[in-house]
């Protein structure tokens, strides 16, 4: 497995690893799901869920552009 060389264009952003487009999209999705689950558990009584969605989408755009 060590022999696999990633071929897609990669770059250094603010994320701690070199990433390609797929990685950044993946990270965004993982964070989006995680935030939504935690939000439903702890915050939904106070703030509606769409706030989480908006926040996460903003973060996703940021990660995909700059990550």
């Amino acid at each position, binding site marked *: *497995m*060590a*022999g*696999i060389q*990633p*071929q*897609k264009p990669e770059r250094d952003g603010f994320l701690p690893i070199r990433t390609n487009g*797929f990685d950044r999209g993946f990270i965004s999705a993982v964070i989006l799901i995680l935030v939504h689950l935690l939000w439903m558990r702890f915050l939904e009584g106070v703030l509606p869920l769409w706030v989480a969605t908006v926040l996460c989408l903003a973060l996703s755009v940021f990660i995909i552009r700059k990550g």
Partner: protein
Amino acid sequence: MRRSGIASFVLWICLTILTLLPVWWMLVVSMRPRVKLYSKSVLIDNLYWDNFLAVLNSSTFLQYLWNSMVVATSNAALVCALGLLAAFGLSRYKISGGDNVFFWLITNRMAPPAVFLLPLFLLFTKWFVFGDFMLFDTKIGLILLYCVFNLPFAIWLLKGMLDGIPLELDEAARVDGATTGQVLSHVILPLARPGLAVTFILTWIFAWNEYLFAATLTSSADARTVTTALAEYVSVTGTNWGEMAAMAFLTTLPALVVLGFVQKHIVTGLTFGALKG
């Protein structure tokens, strides 16, 4: 070096005993008549075969045994054929997006089966239905399904072996006017035969061993396998330990038989060819 050799030898002996103890105990229990079952000796007192005979005389168990044979053999054959093609493609051609294929195949092998039980159950009972034919509770369903974990395994085992066949042989055959199909059948296939045999045996064993899918996606003697027989047996007849041990031993038997042939390749296969055993 001498001393470490002896220490190493002693350690090997201890480990071997530890490894064999559970299997040995299973054999001991399977050879005990009912009256002696609760004896705590770890030695076989006398050769007593009635437990095995009882299991092998049950027509349901024989049917299950046959099902397992059919499923494992067909699945191993299918996986070897498709795996050889895929491994040939991966080994001899530069494939764009090979990385992604690799990760996707790993995902297939590594995904928890329990997660896919529900969708597969629903698909098998409600969607993959053609007239009277339903994929649920058929051997074909299991044969296709076991490709999920066996095919990636086979591809990586075979790719490692095909990579070891010099490319010059292909080129020489092509210069002589062979088509790609002829290269595959006349050059690669004969040379890959030992590798194919190992792959066949290992995938056969994994298909034979599988329980969760078989238990969920079959319901009648038409398709149930030996592993489900063993599990059913435990829940039905609580304390008939002798027969249960005999059944467990029969389930383990194929693994014991082929162990010597495949021992070298297991590590390579399980680590996606990352390690040579």
